[in-house]
């Protein structure tokens, strides 16, 4: 078991190296004039020349890569063109808001998606199965950004229930002091007993939460259903039923535990999708997370920032998959 984890970790590092290499390739080798890209569209020729030296573009490629890796390992992702601030810092600031959304979608995926898949598989071809399957396939066909707009149209414009965007209403932002312990608004406000802020934050997270949570629920429900269908056909399920074990135990313990591998894989995948979906949804809701950051970076052609977010997201995803693989290894058969 330990050997497996070690091997997997090593593979993860190799992969991260590969990821770094590809991103390096993207920034230095592909563009026609990397220096110009680095300093943006409004740079003067002198700035471009300076950038060329700074980036070491006159050096041979492997030296460049060396410097690049060195920077990466120190956590130096360069500076944003628009704000002139170190990208790493800006990412850290924007991270908590995105994590809130990712957390919601993961919770939804696990606690709504999985049960939906299980029930759907158990009652195959009954009305609840058809409904759930239609829902799942429908939901993964929806463009997330469009869902966001439609929800805003419906619930803000027409029904006036939920706010248009942002984490807090401007009124609160201006009049009250926002607690800042962990950076997680919901957590901080709850812990400091600031219920008005907490409720306000809760109200603001509903629409973005639904927008970003739909896809993972559909995806996980689909995958869980197909995994469970196979499992429920197995002899040990029939045997368990013959011993008089309750459906509750048979489904949620005996059957589900056999699907850990595929389940954790698909949950990891859905988190990956969520991460990218935040790029599409945050700007719609003016949600101050990494997604808005990269969206404005793209518009403003802030290449260093785009690069920074790419590397950061890719690395997170690699780590995420590492965790998922380790969970899969918990299956006793794999350990053998």
């Amino acid at each position, binding site marked *: 078991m330990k050997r497996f984890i070690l091997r997997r970790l090593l593979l993860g590092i190799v992969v991260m190296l*590969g990821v770094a290499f590809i991103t390096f390739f993207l920034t230095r080798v592909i*563009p026609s004039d990397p220096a110009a890209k680095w300093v943006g569209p409004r740079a003067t020729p002198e700035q471009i020349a300076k950038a060329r030296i700074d980036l070491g573009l006159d050096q041979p490629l492997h030296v460049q890569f060396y410097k690049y890796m060195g920077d990466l390992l120190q956590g130096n992702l360069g500076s944003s063109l628009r704000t002139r601030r170190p990208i790493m810092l800006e990412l850290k600031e924007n991270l908590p808001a995105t994590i809130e959304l990712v957390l919601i979608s993961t919770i939804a995926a696990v606690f709504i998606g999985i049960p939906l898949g299980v029930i759907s598989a158990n009652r195959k071809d009954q009305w609840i199965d058809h409904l759930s399957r239609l829902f799942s*396939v429908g939901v993964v066909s929806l*463009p997330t950004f*469009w869902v966001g707009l439609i929800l805003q149209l419906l619930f803000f414009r027409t029904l006036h229930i939920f706010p248009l965007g942002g984490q807090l209403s401007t009124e609160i932002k201006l009049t009250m002091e926002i607690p800042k312990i962990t950076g997680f608004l919901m957590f901080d406000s709850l812990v400091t007993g600031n219920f008005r802020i907490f409720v306000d934050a809760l109200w603001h997270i509903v629409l973005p939460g639904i927008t970003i949570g739909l896809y993972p629920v559909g995806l996980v429900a689909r995958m869980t259903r197909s995994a469970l269908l196979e499992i429920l056909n197995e002899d040990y399920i029939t045997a368990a039923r013959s011993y008089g074990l309750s459906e509750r135990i048979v489904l949620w313990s005996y059957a589900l535990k056999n699907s850990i591998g595929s389940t954790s894989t698909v949950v990891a995948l859905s988190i990956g999708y969520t*991460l990218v979906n935040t790029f599409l949804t945050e700007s719609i809701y003016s949600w101050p997370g990494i997604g808005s950051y990269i969206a404005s970076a793209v518009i403003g052609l802030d290449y260093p920032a*785009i690069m920074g977010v790419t590397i950061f997201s890719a690395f997170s995803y690699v780590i995420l998959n590492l965790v998922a693989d380790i969970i899969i290894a918990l299956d006793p058969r794999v350990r053998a």
Partner: protein
Amino acid sequence: MQWLSDFTMTLQPSIREFRMSFYLLNRNRLQRISLIVIVLLVLVAVFAPFIAPYPGHAISDTNPDDKLQPPSTRYWFGTDELGRDMLSRVIYGTRISLQTALIAVGMALLIGVPLGAIAGGLGGVMDEIIMRITDVFLSFPPLLLAIAMSAFLGPNLRNAMLSIAISWWPWYTRIIRGQAVSIRERQFVRAARAIGTPKMSIIFKHILPNTFAPVIVQASMDIGGVILTIASLSFLGLGAQPPTPEWGLLISTSRTYFLNAWWYSTFPGIAIVITVLVFNLIGDGIREVLDPKTRRF
């Protein structure tokens, strides 16, 4: 062109299987409807200039007098901020989406399939190298690579297709490689090796034709996802550029106006949903038909 006739000959049994699967596909009512809708979409895409009421609006004409009109008998889907007929723009958008999706998937296949065949067919060091590269590419969250690549190549539709192809090929390589490995051990390949047929020839004449089926299935299932990806890229500003009437771009532009012009965001979105949905449904159907081959009752 001997290799071509050899190639088609080895494809024969898979073609027959295909026809049978096609038959079975039509059993389910939902699948049948999806199939019909897909045919309709293709027709719309092909005959766009004849179907759209104001074809000029989809390309370059503007009509400032009628800007931001709600849906009416003249403009079924309303108009945008330049007075262009949304219906026509959405219709042309069908053309763009289908075209770009097919090209992107095609390119991905072009890269991924040979690589997979070589990896699986040759084995050894080549296999390891190719698979590691595949792993690295697959470690990027879906879409991320396409976003980054589009940003750096320059935001336009052509680069978007290229970026998608470069993000997508690893999936196909994996599938083909898996197939190739299992076929490699089969009798007829061993026989070919025994008589000394060069490895490359073995790969392309014997292994490749037999590995086609699952990858074609996967590719057709992917079309829905690719359409969504293109729309997402365009939404971010990395794909189609104005005045191209790509659905994602339409929705993106609508953001400024949609609170007072609901039709602007709604109709392109519905177009996306319907298109992606039917492709996903067909993909599901294809998968179900091929999977329970062992569980037929």
